[in-house]
C-alpha cells in the first residue's frame, strides 16, 4: 500500500510540482542563455516555485489530512507508516527533481554565460574555501553526495510538517485552536525557515574551524537525524491511534 500512497500523494501535488519544475528549468536556462533576465528576473522566477511550494505543502499536510478531503483520505486502508512515508516521499521526490535542474543551471552558467556573474561568485567562493585549507576532494565529495543530503533534509522537513500539527495541539492547545488550516502551514513553514536560517548563520560562524567544522556538522546532523526519527515515530503513532480528520 505504500506505493499506492506515494502515487496518490504525487498526484495530489503534480500540478504545482509541474509548474514549479518548469519555472526551475526557465530559471536555470536564463542563468546560462539569458544572463540579464537571470540577473533581474531570478526573484520573480523564484516567486512561482515558492507559491507552488506553499500550495503543495497545504495540499499534502493540511487539506488532505484536516480539510475537505480528509474524510475520504481517512477512509483509505492506509497504515500510519503508509500515510507518513507517502507524503514525505512525494515531497522528497519533488525536491530531488528540482536539484539536478539547479545544479545543471549553475554548471551551464559557469561554462557558457556571457555575463559571468555566477562564474565569478563560484570562483570566489571556491577560491576562499581552498585558501582556507579545505581540500578539493572534500569539496567534490560534499557536492557529490548533495543528493543524499537533500533527501535527508526533505525527509526531515516532511516529518516535521506532519509532526508540527499535532505537536502544536499537544503542547499549546490554545494556540493550536487559533492557528488552523492555512495559518498552521504558514506557521510551520515560518518556524522551519527560522531554523534553516539559524543553521545557515551557525555554519557561517563556524566554517573556518577546519577539521572541527566537520566534527560539529557531523554532531549536528546526528542530532537532526535523531530528531527526524523521533518525529517520524511520533507521526506514525499519531496516525495509527490518535488521528482524527476533524
Amino acid at each position, binding site marked *: 500500500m505504500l*506505493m499506492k500512497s506515494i502515487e496518490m500523494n504525487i498526484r495530489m501535488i503534480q500540478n504545482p510540482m509541474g509548474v514549479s519544475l518548469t519555472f526551475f528549468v526557465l530559471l536555470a536556462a536564463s542563468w546560462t542563455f539569458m544572463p540579464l533576465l537571470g540577473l533581474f528576473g531570478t526573484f520573480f522566477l523564484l516567486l512561482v516555485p515558492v507559491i507552488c511550494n506553499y500550495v503543495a505543502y497545504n495540499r499534502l499536510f493540511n487539506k488532505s489530512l484536516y480539510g475537505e478531503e480528509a474524510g475520504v483520505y481517512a477512509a483509505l486502508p492506509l497504515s500510519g507508516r503508509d500515510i507518513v512515508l507517502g507524503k514525505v516521499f512525494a515531497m522528497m521526490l519533488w525536491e530531488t527533481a528540482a536539484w539536478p535542474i539547479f545544479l545543471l543551471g549553475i554548471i551551464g552558467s559557469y561554462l557558457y554565460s556571457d555575463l559571468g556573474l555566477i562564474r*565569478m561568485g563560484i*570562483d570566489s567562493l*571556491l577560491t576562499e574555501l581552498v*585558501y582556507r585549507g579545505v581540500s*578539493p*576532494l572534500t569539496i567534490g565529495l560534499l557536492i557529490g553526495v548533495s543528493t543524499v543530503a537533500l533527501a535527508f533534509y526533505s525527509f526531515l522537513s516532511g516529518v516535521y510538517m506532519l509532526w508540527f500539527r499535532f505537536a502544536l495541539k499537544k503542547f499549546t492547545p490554545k494556540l493550536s485552536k487559533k492557528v488552523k488550516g492555512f495559518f498552521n502551514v504558514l506557521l510551520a513553514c515560518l518556524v522551519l525557515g527560522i531554523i534553516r536560517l539559524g543553521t545557515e548563520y551557525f555554519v557561517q560562524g563556524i566554517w573556518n574551524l577546519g577539521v572541527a567544522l566537520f566534527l560539529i556538522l557531523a554532531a549536528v546532523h546526528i542530532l537532526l537525524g535523531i530528531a527526524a526519527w523521533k518525529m517520524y515515530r511520533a507521526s506514525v503513532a499519531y496516525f495509527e491511534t490518535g488521528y482524527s480528520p476533524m
Partner: protein
Amino acid sequence: MKKSKTKIFILFVIALAVCTSVFAGIFFYSICSSILTDRQNFDDLDWTVRLNQYEGIEALDTNRELYMVSTKDDKNYLIDGRGKKVPWELDCKENSDILIAFSQDDKWGYKYPDGKIVIAAKFDEAYDFDDGYAKVSKNGTDYFVIDDKGRTVFEPGERASELEQISGKFFLFYKAKHRSVINVETGQVTEDVGFYDSFHDAGEGMFAAKTDFAWDDVEPMFLLSRSFKPMFSGQLYNQIGSFGQGLCYVQKLVGATEEEHEDYQIENGYMNTDGDIVIKTATAIFGCKFAEGRALLYEGKRICCIDQSGSVLFSLKPAKTLEKKLGEDFEYRYSQCYFRNGKAIVYDGKFYGLIDEDGNWVIQPVFDEMTYAGTDKLLVEYKGMSGMIRLK
C-alpha cells in the same frame, strides 16, 4: 501499469539527481584542483601583497609607489612598494591626483591619504579626480566641476546631470540643447558633438570617438583633435587603439561615410600621426600599443608580437579563438597589453599573464586582471582576490 510507471518515474528522478550531483562533484573538484595548482605555482612569484592579504588594492601614485589597500572590516591603509604601511605624516600635497573621496554625515569631500581634509564634506556625490578636476553634485541633480582646491570651475546649468568627464580638463555637457565639450582650464567650448557616443584618449593629442550609428558588425569611429573636430578629412574607422611610439592600430573604413556605407573596404594596420597606414595587418582583430619597439597583435587564432617594420618576432596560441563581438570594449581589455622593461602583459582570450621578449611566459595566464603599477610591480586579480607582484 500505472504503478510501474510511478516506479519508473521515481527511479528516473533519483538516478538523474544522483548522476547530476556526482557529475557536479567531479566538476567542482576539477575547478578546486586547478585553484590549488595555481596557488602552488604562485609560491614562485615575489608577492609584495599576497592574494588574500587585503580585500582590495588600488594604485594611487605609481611614480611614488603609493597604494591604497582596504581590509575586510572596511578600513583603508596606505602602503608603499614593499607592501609596508606608510606613516600617516607622509606629505602628499605635491600630487593632486592623490586626493581621495571620503564621506562624513552622508556628504562627500576629499582628503589626502594622511587623513588631512582638503575639501570639506559638502557634496552629495563626488567622483575621482582626473588630472586636477572632478565632477561633484550638491543635491543629486546639480552637477558641476571643481579643481583640486575645491573651487567651482564650471557649472553647466542645463541638463547638469548629464555632465561627463571625458579626460582631465575635458567635460561633456549640454548647451542650448546641444552636446558640447568644454575645456574647463581655458573655458573653450566646442561645437555640437551630439553625434558621438563615447570617447577615449588615443594619445598624440587625439580622441577616438564612437558614433551613435552602426551597420552590420561595424561601429564607426572618428579620430578627433583636441578641439573635437574630425581629423584626416573625417575618415571613419571600425577600430581605434592608442598611439605608442607614433603608431596607432586602426581599422580604416575606406570609402564609407555616415550616409554611404554599401561599398567600402577595411584597411587594417598601424597608422602614423599623419593618418597613413604604415604597417599592414590584414587579419588582426586588434592591435595593442607600441612600446619598446614592439606591439602585440591579436588575430583570431594567434597572438603575434611585431616590430616597427611589421615583422612577426614570435607568436602565441590563445586559450580560445578570439573574435570581435559588437559592443566589446577592446581598447579597455587590451589597454595594459604592451611592453615595459622587456616584459608584456598578455590577455590570452581567457586570462592575463606576462611574457618576456622571446614570448616565454614569465607569469602563466591565470589572472582575471593585470595592470602595471610602478616600475617593477603588477597589480593582479585572481578569482575575486587582489594582490601585488614584484617582478624579478
